[in-house]
């Protein structure tokens, strides 16, 4: 008898159900009368709530439009020399000659990324009620490691189109088959006498830029490229 068989047999004895036809059971016995959203909001209110909640977690929140983005990025990257990019950010970049841009590619090692000063990405969506941005590895975001190892992450959110109200609204829009990273403020710890310290292992600085811009184009290629 394998361990698997043994565990399954123990479970069946424990719940006194015969094997096999213990169907997944009607989902109906799970009361789902909780709220889908916790308030009715206009798109603008949704964006404002996202901004407020992100700021509360000490993310730095900025607002601009497509025309203003280049300048803003230039300012946010003032101290950077090397900037990491996903395969396809979908926005124009500052043309500052002092900046070197590196595009995500499979051969980039964690050590390479450790020498990068900042990373600029888009996101899959953002959740207002919890102050969360979600990355799903799409072309505007790249592999998970590029938003992890560099010390400064600048994340662009197209508003209002990419902002949803709540967690229950967000999940159906996400593909669980893809690697998902939910980010709510910069890395933090309260392990020492409960005093909150920002920035342990993830990026210590998180800039979220709310860009008034149309919804992202549908992803032509569901995975980051390997150029």
């Amino acid at each position, binding site marked *: 008898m394998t361990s698997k068989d043994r565990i399954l047999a123990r479970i069946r004895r424990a719940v006194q159900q015969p094997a096999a036809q213990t169907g997944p059971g009607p989902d109906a016995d799970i009361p789902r009368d909780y709220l889908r959203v916790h308030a009715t909001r206009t798109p603008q209110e949704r964006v404002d709530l996202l901004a407020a909640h992100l700021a509360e977690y000490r993310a730095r929140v900025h607002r601009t439009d497509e025309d203003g983005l280049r300048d803003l990025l230039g300012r946010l990257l003032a101290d950077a020399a090397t900037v990491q990019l996903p395969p396809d950010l979908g926005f124009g970049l500052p043309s500052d000659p002092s900046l070197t841009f590196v595009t995500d590619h499979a051969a980039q090692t964690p050590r390479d990324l450790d020498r990068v000063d900042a990373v600029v990405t888009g996101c899959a969506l953002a959740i207002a009620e919890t102050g969360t941005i979600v990355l799903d590895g799409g072309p505007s975001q790249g592999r998970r490691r590029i938003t992890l190892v560099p010390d400064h992450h600048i994340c662009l959110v197209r508003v209002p189109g990419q902002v949803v109200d709540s*967690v229950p609204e967000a999940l159906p829009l996400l593909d*669980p088959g893809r690697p998902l990273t939910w980010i709510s403020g910069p890395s933090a710890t309260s392990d*020492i006498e409960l005093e909150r310290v920002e920035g342990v292992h993830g990026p210590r600085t998180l800039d979220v830029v709310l860009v008034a811009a149309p919804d992202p184009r549908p992803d032509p290629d569901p995975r980051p490229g390997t150029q």
Partner: protein
Amino acid sequence: MTRTDLGMPAFPEAAREAVRDGVLRANLRHATHTIRDKRARAVAELADWDRLRAAGKAVKDHTLRHLDRHLLRLEAAVTAAGGTVHWAVDADEANRIVTELVRATGEREVVKVKSMATQEIGLNEALEAAGIAAYETDLAELIVQLGRDRPSHILVPAIHRNRAEIRDIFRAEMGRWGRPAPDALGDDPRELAEAARLHLREKFLRAKVAVSGANFMVAETGTMVVLESEGNGRMCLTLPETLISVVGIEKVVPTFRDLEIFLQTLPRSSTAERMNPYTTMWTGLGPSRGADGDGPSAFHLVLLDNGRTDTLADETGRQALRCIRCSACLNVCPVYERAGGHAYGSVYPGPIGAVLSPQLRGTGSAIDASLPYASTLCGACYDVCPVAIDIPEILVHLRERVAQGGPVTRHGIRVRIRPAHGHTAERAAVRAARLLLDRPGALRAGERLLARARRLTPRRLPGPGRAWTDTRELPSVPAESFRDWWTRERGTPQ
């Protein structure tokens, strides 16, 4: 079976030490009160909290009722996504599987994300015996590991250490494990966190193998979910080539949609945040099956029983398997606040530990037999639990079991345990009861709850509590509810 802390004194002895330690009690009190107040605010923000709680309970109950189905579904989904699933009946088997998997990579070290399951099975010790170094990467776990210490809280495992102690530990020990602490290291938490960042970064960048647990596993899709704050989880889950996750079988939920409940209730119950800084979800090796260099190229899931199916066989006790390890029950527990986490003699401290350890490990040892008595039955733990585990009900049930004996399932076999009369276990239990029932108010609250807990309408407390009530007139049950009593005795209800 589970690694019991052999030689661990029974709860009352261990607790007495903590009760005498003024610094420890002050630290604990500050921590638990701070988190519980924040939690109350975070929970109050959601008008539908009770409905989320009921839904979370229902999802977990449903899953446990059909656990075989959901595990098979999970296995199929993980396998289809390029992962490999292993089944471990007990701690030894799980440790053997992980050790073999690490050996097969040729590596001698692994980085670890905080995981209760791997602590429960003593994985670090097993790896060490096999010549493999396991590095804890959660800041608190690092403090515990460097200090050769034991965790004392689920969420903030080093809460019993203050900043000066942590600085001393870093200064003395970091160099032996890797990059030493800076010479002039002070005791500002910011400086200490920075020292940990530098110390661990070196390990993350070179690590080839990582070991994690998981908060949830989705049967439908094979998706694993890890919630964290520091980013050490993301490092371990995405940078190494091989990822091994050891997860208790009760962590499965049926559908991806079910996460909409727990991703709302867990962060608020645990760190009292609307959402924790980072949550990672991954499904096997991802859409490219590991070819795109995003995340590990090998993923192993070790499904752990280790007493869980025995717990499942107990109709009253099985609800403990709903636990999502938020630690809210610790922070409201008057006994935990007095006794500290170490007194519970297992990786699961506080009210949940008092009901989980004696079920996972059996009540054969003095510590496990005394744990069901490590409570005043005030019911605050039940009130805050995001999956509505009636901990007092289980405690009463386990007390009866210890005192009067009865049927239990051990290692999958139904046996009848004898009453603990005159047994060392009972003596330990009586002392625990005395230690904790030395305040009439607490006993009254317990009685109120006992009356509420259908099964028993006792004139005497069951089990060793009886020794106490035999010599005293039981106070008549007050007209006020225990919640009112709690409010009056201890301030705002949670």
